[in-house]
């Protein structure tokens, strides 16, 4: 098993280019010669295929390949970085020499590189692109299109998309890492437009993870996404104007966990905290959330979208408690920031590709279940909003201000879910909002696997999750005052 994970990516990435172990050692030795603290080579190949249906036709499909190496030399807080889209010995030499130009000081030692270590694996290695035939992919798209249209005559447009990627990475660094990982990732999405009395509304659903595409063909998995997208569009056809102002908000389980990702997740990434620029800086050990809240980042859940057997610096994927019973326990770290803060990486060093530098990023971030019955939570609200689906969010980690935008939400009136409301943005301050979590449901769910997190222009796949939550006050950005 470990051979499959280890040898395949390394051989696949290096053997064809005639780059031997001794060549790697030689390059690393020279990268370290100008007193660099740590040198790192990141080899990656990435293949992606997608198929899209709209207007009943599988019109568009594409295949892409990228392959390259990123070289990084770190000296204290400084990094030199260069990359090349060609894995060749001469190019590697130029790239490492450009990267090391940053460093003029530092300790400069090469650790003994361990023989390739075996890591626990949280997903299989099979290639999702070839796991299903092209005929079957096309047939599935058409089947889902017809299924969605047959659910309700108000469905007017259906768009369906299948995307599969297969990625191999191999990391060689001066602190002793020589590790590879093979990462499959699939994503399926359905978007529909429904029309009633001239009004048009959209519904969306999707999911996936680190597994092959056969999953989509099991049972009614694909149809379930279509059913969900149609249901959401039909609900929105009857939506009334959303209220405006601060009020009680109940968030449904699963994807609404984007709240945690924005309100606390980014603020607990090590780079911001090392620099003292996060609203959560220097607050370890303090009560930063209601005692009902325990929040973790977990790369080790099998086959999840945000899971990683190892991160992009070769640190094994881990489960990290961020907040326990409301008390801040720790930050998410990569190697650079943890070294500068005198601690160790939590396996959160991630990068979009060989052409980007790693930084602390989330994997699967969620809140553990509490004890309340979700029905009781809604019953406890006299007037407020119940939000069950979101488009996405954003945070300013320095002020702590964050937003997330509902795509399916309802009014709660006198303890009962009532009319659906138009999409509204919710805004709050992360550290304040978490202290206002007054009820936590017993219904933890993880999202179905669609999230992409963006930071400094780099996108990486992530997971979120939570049980049903009640927040005592959050500002709802509707139009009805």
């Amino acid at each position: 098993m470990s051979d499959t994970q280890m040898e395949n990516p390394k051989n696949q990435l290096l053997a064809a280019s005639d780059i031997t172990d001794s060549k790697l050692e030689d390059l690393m030795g020279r990268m370290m010669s100008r007193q660099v603290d740590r040198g790192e080579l990141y080899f990656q190949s990435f293949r992606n295929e997608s198929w899209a249906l709209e207007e009943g036709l599988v019109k568009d499909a594409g295949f892409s390949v990228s392959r390259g190496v990123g070289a990084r030399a770190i000296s204290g807080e400084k990094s030199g970085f260069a990359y090349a889209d060609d894995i060749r010995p001469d190019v590697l030499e130029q790239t490492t020499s450009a990267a090391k130009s940053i460093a003029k000081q530092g300790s400069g030692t090469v650790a003994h590189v361990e023989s390739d270590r075996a890591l626990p694996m949280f997903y299989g290695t099979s290639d999702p692109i070839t796991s299903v035939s092209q005929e079957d992919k096309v047939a599935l798209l058409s089947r889902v299109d017809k299924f969605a249209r047959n659910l309700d005559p108000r469905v007017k447009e259906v768009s369906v998309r299948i995307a599969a990627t297969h990625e191999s990475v191999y990391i060689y660094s001066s602190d002793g890492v020589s590790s590879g990982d093979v990462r499959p990732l699939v994503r399926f999405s359905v978007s529909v437009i429904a029309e009633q009395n001239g009004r048009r509304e959209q519904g969306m659903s999707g999911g996936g993870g680190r597994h092959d595409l056969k999953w989509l063909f099991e049972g009614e998995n694909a149809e379930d996404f279509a059913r969900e997208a149609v249901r959401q569009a039909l609900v929105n056809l009857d939506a009334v104007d959303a209220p405006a102002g601060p009020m009680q908000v109940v968030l449904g389980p699963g994807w609404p966990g984007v709240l945690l990702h924005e309100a606390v997740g980014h603020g607990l990434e090590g780079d911001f905290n090392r620099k003292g620029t996060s609203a959560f800086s220097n607050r370890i050990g303090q009560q930063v959330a209601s005692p009902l809240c325990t929040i973790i980042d977990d790369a080790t859940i099998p086959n999840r979208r945000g899971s990683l057997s190892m991160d992009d610096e070769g640190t094994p994927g881990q489960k990290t408690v961020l907040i326990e019973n409301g008390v801040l326990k720790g930050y998410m770290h990569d190697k650079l920031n943890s070294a500068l803060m005198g601690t160790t990486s939590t396996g959160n060093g991630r990068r979009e590709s060989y052409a980007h530098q790693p930084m602390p990023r989330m994997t699967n971030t969620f809140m553990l279940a509490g004890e309340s019955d979700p029905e009781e939570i809604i019953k406890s609200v006299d007037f407020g909003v119940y939000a069950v689906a979101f488009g996405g969010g954003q945070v300013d980690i320095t002020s702590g201000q964050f937003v997330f935008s509902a795509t399916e939400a309802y009014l709660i009136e006198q303890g009962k879910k009532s009319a659906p409301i138009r999409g509204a943005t919710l805004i709050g301050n992360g550290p304040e909002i978490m202290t206002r979590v007054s009820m936590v449901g017993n219904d933890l769910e993880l999202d179905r696997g669609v999230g992409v997190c963006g930071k400094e222009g780099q996108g990486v796949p992530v997971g979120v999750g939570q049980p049903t939550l009640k927040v005592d006050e959050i500002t709802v950005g509707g139009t009805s005052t």
Partner: protein
Amino acid sequence: MSSMKSSEIQAAMDFQEPHTKQDEESLKGFVQRILDEAKKQGASAAEVAAGDDIGLSVVVRSGDLETVEFSRDRGFGITVYLGNKKGSSSTTDISDDSIRESVEAAVGIARYTEPDPFSGLADPDRLATEFHDLDLYHPRAMDVDEAKENALIIESCAQDVDSKIFKCDSSRVGSASACTAYGNSLGFLHAERESRYNMFADVIAKNKDGMQRDYWYSTNRNADELETPSSIGETAANRALLKLDPRPIPTGEYPVLFDRGIASGLIGHLISGLGGRAQYLKSSYLLDSMNKQVATDALTLREHPHLKGALGSRSYDSEGVATTEKPFVEHGIVRNYVLSSYSGRHLDMPTTGNASGVCNLTVEATLQPVDDILKQMGTGLLVQSLMGQGVNIVTGDYSRGASGYWIVDGEFAHAVDELTIAGKLDEMFMHMIAFGDDIDLRHSIRTGSLLVESMTVAAN
């Protein structure tokens, strides 16, 4: 500047330009080889885009280099047609083996996609035949020391503005040179070079009540035309300082002035609604709006694709179709959708040469100084930054996170944050009542500040 003169200057400067005229020719040759391979493999038509980008980015923090990044991105994308069936592939591998494999992949996919009557290359009579001198390439040596010097000035000037400046979180200086080529099996084949320079400051101000972050940047095709490093640092610092001590305001309906830095995004929503795909998929709040009023009659939106040196200038779009100067909205009335060949055929209209978006779309209205607009507004919200994705083009529902300044009697009163602003895009554009003369040239949509008569502002 004429091309003759600029080449003389280059010779005198004695440096290797990142991309030469020769690079354009060899990239064209490369594109032609891929087109030939597609023909050989049986494609009835094909189009190829290839690029070679070289860049340097230097970040300074706390008086020293933080990162130096050298980038080189090469690659190509091909779309092949088997009759009306289409397949695409792209790669960063430019080897001969990769050319063959990429064409195979695209042809392999096209065998399985379904025939689409609207698909195919642009109509031959739409392809650009005139290539304007757009003055997009101002090559310059990519020098780490010079970039570092400028980044250090940005940082120190930001820090010197006030003792409440906690830190310049990063100052970044970047330069990029790109050579791109596009060709198709109708015989169109052209290459271009362009340059782009940026300077950026990200500054944090702090007092006992908390921290606030803001940024400023300058971007230009000519490094000599950038704002000075000192003014970038100072502007970012002053913006961050003004955000300190936010105070609450009551939830209500207020006039909202969109600052020039974010106003282009608002115009962009209207342009999305006029997009060809949104129209044919009937997923636009501006569905079937041709020749209908969608904005105040004071507003005209015209694109000027051939402005010299502008960021959004181009002679042809991503299908080789000639770009033209034209209005999308004239006195509030829709005159053109934003179309590619595909969406045009679908809607039974000619392409507008906008397969790669609008080019230097410019707000044309009676422009006023922002101070006059603030007086006209009296009491209301000046939005400096927006957060989140709460814009629904299908319905026109608009609800976003906002922060900025509270204005009373036309004057700055205090900072505000943690607000939402909400409305309907159609009403916002019908009630856009003033247009600033502070045109922001950093975007391909060129507008100054925009005043919307009334929106719902929700506050904590």
